[in-house]
């Protein structure tokens, strides 16, 4: 597996810039043109996004993009949705689901990554190939059989079952990422400890893990972000309104009352999106913006 690793990827922001600076009018025109076209595309991406931001602060928001002004500008929408029913409980449920499954995924993935990274054995290659294969399977497709399985096992509408399933869906990718980070920790330190009689689990705990915290936190945050936005899995597996996470409740709450309060929907969207954006910023600072592709292309 390790030989298939592509060369380390470079952050988007650091790629060499405007290569042909100041080499005649022709390159100059090309550079201006590139900047203009890039800006226009950027603007097209920005406009739909602006609606959420503007509407969230507009007590009289409709579907059109408009700047909230004067009397309509304010925090009314946020005040309206920040209730236990609408915001706090779904957010809490989402947190329980995501923290729970991300924690399970990371512990299980670390355990699994250790023998895969440290030892050369006959099961390694088939196991890694199976893992790689399952990262490609559309999870959407197995939601019907999973529903059937959960009915049989009496796990429908339980947070525990949903957490276990979500952790499993994150596993293949987490194992890959963790193994790759672990490969980066030199084995010489462990060999010294082994000679002194330490077991492999001890060296994992006291030598390998302390050296790969940055990598592990990346896997953790990455798993969390993926689950926070996941709609289909909790939508199928959870039924009671008081167990639904934000990703599902945002969908159901606003469909129920006939006319949709667009401003409130936007405010709630902002609240729900905020944690992911914060985590993403933290994460990209840490790894220079290209964190997910090292792993994505490998696995």
């Amino acid at each position: 597996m390790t030989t298939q690793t592509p060369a380390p990827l470079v952050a988007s922001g650091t790629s060499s810039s405007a290569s042909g600076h100041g080499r005649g009018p022709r390159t100059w025109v090309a550079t201006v043109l590139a900047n203009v076209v890039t800006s226009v595309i950027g603007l097209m991406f920005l406009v739909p996004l602006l609606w959420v931001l503007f509407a969230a602060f507009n007590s009289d928001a409709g579907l059109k993009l408009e700047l909230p002004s004067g009397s309509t500008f304010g925090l009314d929408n946020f005040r309206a949705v920040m209730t236990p029913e609408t915001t706090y409980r779904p957010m809490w449920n989402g947190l329980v689901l995501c923290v729970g499954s991300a924690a399970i995924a990371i512990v299980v993935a670390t355990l699994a990554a250790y023998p895969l990274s440290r030892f050369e054995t006959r099961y390694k290659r088939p196991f890694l190939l199976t893992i790689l294969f399952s990262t490609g399977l559309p999870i959407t497709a197995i939601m019907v059989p999973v529903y059937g399985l959960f009915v049989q096992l009496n796990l429908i509408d339980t947070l525990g079952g949903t957490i276990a399933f979500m952790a499993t869906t994150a596993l293949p990718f987490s194992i890959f990422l963790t193994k790759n980070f672990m490969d980066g920790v030199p084995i010489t330190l462990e060999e010294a400890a082994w000679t002194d009689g330490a077991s492999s689990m001890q060296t994992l705990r006291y030598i390998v893990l302390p050296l790969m915290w940055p990598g592990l936190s990346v896997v953790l945050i990455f798993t969390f972000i993926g689950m926070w936005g996941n709609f289909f899995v909790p939508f199928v597996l959870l039924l009671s309104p008081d167990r639904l996470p934000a990703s599902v409740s945002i969908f159901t709450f606003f469909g129920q009352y006939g006319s949709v309060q667009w401003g409130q929907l936007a405010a709630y969207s902002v609240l729900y999106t905020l944690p992911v954006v914060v985590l993403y910023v933290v994460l990209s600072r840490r790894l220079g913006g290209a964190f997910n592709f090292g792993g994505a292309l490998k696995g």
Partner: protein
Amino acid sequence: MATVTRPGAPAGPDLRRRTHPVKVDIARALPLTPAIVLLLVFLAGPILWCVYAAFTNIALTGAGSGETKFVGLDNFRAAFSSDAFANSVVLTLVFTFLSAVVGQNLLGLALALLQKRSVKVVRTLVGITVIGAWVIPEVVAGYVWYAFLAQDGTFNEILGRFGLGQNWLYTLPIIAVSLANVWRGTAFSMLVYNAALSEIPAEIEEAAEMDGATGWRRLRYVTVPMIKRTVTTNLMLITLQTLSVFGLIYTMTKGGPGTKSQTLPLYMYEQAFSFSQIGYGTAIALVLLAVGAVFSILYMRLLRED
């Protein structure tokens, strides 16, 4: 990385393999147990159940709800002769082709190329915006695009001035959801191509420029051939992602109006959960899984050629 070996073992895989008793292998595999258990129960289990249930008439209500019977290939026969199934296959192909193969892929490549030529401010701001669209949760993206394309939404506000306004979610729903998916997914391709382009040595491009190859020709004969592998890998990944898009379409159109934006995942959902035909639903799931598996194998092949 390939130098990581069993402690104390001499280099050379063949020697290592022979000196290895099976017992040691099993002991070392122990930490894998939790992962294997979870993957067997919640991933392999459902897939096997899928293979079984697709050949039965299992249902939550009606004929199959009492006693589950094997019905052979009936579910598949029903699917392949059904107009609704054919419709959803066509829509899935249109959706994947428009939003992934053309939209995300080409726009991502274009953005990566353009950003290389842009000044830092433009590059960073555009990068943040595009990644912002990618980071926000699926359902929020669905609402954003519902609002943007609705009858009295922003898009029509702009187009209305040219007399082109219409309710896009009704008239061209599959185009509408494809646009939303391009918006949401392009960041991935952009970042992948950014990374690939930054690895092309500057001398090669400069040499091509010296030889008089400009713009389009340089792109076609120098840049694209050099990132060919990345293009294939990226296409594979975004195709797999797009095949399983559910939340975005469900939020925007619920597959409608009628079945005009009902891709395979939505059709499967409707059959299994709205109509309670679990057997038929799993047959469709199996088709989707098979398509995913084919892509997955192709992807593994590609990686191995490295």
